[in-house]
């Protein structure tokens, strides 16, 4: 059982070092208050809130469907995972099931999102440890994935592509060939990164045995996702509580027993390969059919129908002007986002706007872990550890 942090006794030799909120190695406006003695860290306190934009408050004045674009801006490296958890939560409130084709396309796109997120993670982590090349390679591949998002949603990053009950629109025809090419190239690229890093002596020296987290501590601190799996605990919501047809896909949940920075790297590399595998299955087995559920009054009618059917026109008008009202109740829905368990807790009072939307941000929990991991390490190792836990300040502060 892990103990809560207690301040260590301080000697007269200690110094307080502020890292951030502008320091480039902090991925954004994170402020780390380090108490150091020489080069050793005695205590670390993450100070967050510089990017707080009140998204949870804003959601309370919007219709359910209007909240979707806000969710993109929370974790801007994994916008489609955010869209997904929010749409699943509203669908759970409504007891609405999107059609199979929409579910499979959601799986395909959220797996590409995972690769996108892990590429940025790998690139920036390598950059901070001093490997510039990997950073440039990762961003090259990431751009190809962003082009896929742009093809289907019109936006590279703030895609807002999922809707309550399905998807915004059918992807264009050349989308599939593009995804196919991409999925064929990616595994070779991953090999390139591994050639550069996995057995690189500098990389090993900087990451092995650094920032070790035990599985018990990880659970006590609420850690989920790749960080938990790198501590040897095989937990993955895609497998344990399948949502959006994940139970129909065949994949492995990679784990490593060490719990150090290197283990987090290896787990994420393997996850990218598994994501390619899942995306490939989704692409090859994509079912035919509609991409939106048949739920008049909740899901917007097709444009063509509005020109010929009066009901469709009325529903369109009603949804846009009045929204839709789920029954009173509350649901908590969680998905496996690239950073861990991303949860959305929605409370409905029976009105067209959420009474309360709570975002369970894995990034905030990961940042909190720094207070546990950093003490006892050198400042140089702190940079590697901060990079390895993976967070996005937009999601930390919301």
């Amino acid at each position, binding site marked *: 059982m892990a103990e*809560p942090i207690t301040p260590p006794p301080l000697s007269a030799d200690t110094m307080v070092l502020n890292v951030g909120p502008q320091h480039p190695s902090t991925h954004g406006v994170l402020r780390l208050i380090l108490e150091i003695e020489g080069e050793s860290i005695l205590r670390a306190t993450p100070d967050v809130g510089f990017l707080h934009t009140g998204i949870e*408050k804003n959601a309370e004045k919007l219709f359910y469907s209007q909240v979707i674009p806000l969710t993109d801006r929370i974790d801007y490296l994994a916008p489609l995972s955010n869209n997904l958890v929010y749409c699943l939560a509203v669908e759970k409130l409504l007891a609405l099931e999107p059609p199979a084709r929409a579910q499979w396309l959601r799986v395909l796109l959220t797996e590409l999102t995972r690769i996108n997120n892990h590429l940025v993670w790998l690139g920036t982590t390598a950059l901070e440890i001093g490997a510039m090349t990997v950073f440039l390679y990762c961003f090259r591949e990431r751009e190809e994935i962003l082009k896929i998002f742009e093809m289907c949603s019109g936006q590279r990053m703030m895609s807002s592509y999922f809707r309550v009950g399905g998807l915004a629109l059918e992807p264009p025809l050349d989308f599939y060939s593009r995804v196919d090419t991409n999925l064929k190239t990616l595994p070779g690229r991953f090999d390139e990164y591994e050639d550069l890093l996995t057995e690189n002596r500098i990389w090993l020296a900087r990451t092995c045995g650094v920032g070790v987290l035990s599985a018990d501590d990880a659970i006590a601190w609420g*850690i989920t996702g790749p960080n938990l799996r790198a501590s040897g605990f095989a937990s993955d919501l895609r497998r344990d509580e399948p949502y959006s047809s994940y139970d129909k896909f065949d994949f492995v949940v990679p784990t490593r027993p060490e719990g150090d920075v290197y283990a987090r790297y290896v787990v994420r590399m393997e996850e990218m390969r598994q994501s390619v595998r899942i995306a490939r299955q989704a692409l090859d087995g994509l079912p035919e059919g509609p991409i939106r559920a048949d739920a008049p009054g909740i899901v917007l009618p097709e444009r063509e129908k509005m020109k010929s059917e009066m009901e469709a026109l009325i529903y369109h008008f009603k949804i846009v002007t009045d929204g839709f009202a789920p029954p009173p109740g509350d649901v*908590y829905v969680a998905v496996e986002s690239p950073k861990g368990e991303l949860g959305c807790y929605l409370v409905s009072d029976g009105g067209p706007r959420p*009474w309360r939307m709570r975002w*369970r941000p894995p990034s905030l929990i990961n940042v909190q872990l720094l207070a546990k991991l950093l003490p006892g390490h050198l400042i140089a190792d702190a940079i590697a550890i901060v990079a390895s836990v993976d967070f996005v300040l937009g999601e930390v502060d919301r």
Partner: protein
Amino acid sequence: MPATLPAELAGRPEVRKLREFNPGAVLGATDFRGQLALTIAPALLRDICDVLRRDPELSYDFLTDITAVDRYPVEPRFEVVYQLRSMKTRQRLRLKAPLPGDDPRIDSLVGLWPGADVLECEVYDLFGVRFTGHPNLRRLLMPDDWEGHPLRKDYPMEGPR
């Protein structure tokens, strides 16, 4: 005085075991869309979580999230919501602790789960619920000298406070 629950909910192992521990622990229970939520006596929160965590059959050993809901102007106004998960059985359970609008206070869970630290700070920051026994309850997202708690329903969405 234990509240009467429908037989289906009263028979759930979570409810049964908590009532064995203390007949007044569970004030209410709902099962909405297959998700079990228990309204509990706020004064017993820490012990309830300890029972749920230690019980070998239930083993709710993972604290996923802490948040709050403001039911303004209804009393009891606040509901502190705890999302628990069992890493063993993969079940989830939601606990709701009703608190009055006037000086809402509840026990801190930092002693059970160190990860509760920032979650409780966030609830304090945005709702003004105080967690007794928290080692360092502070504003998390808002500036330290901020007045008011933005996620309260009587805090205006825009314009002057």
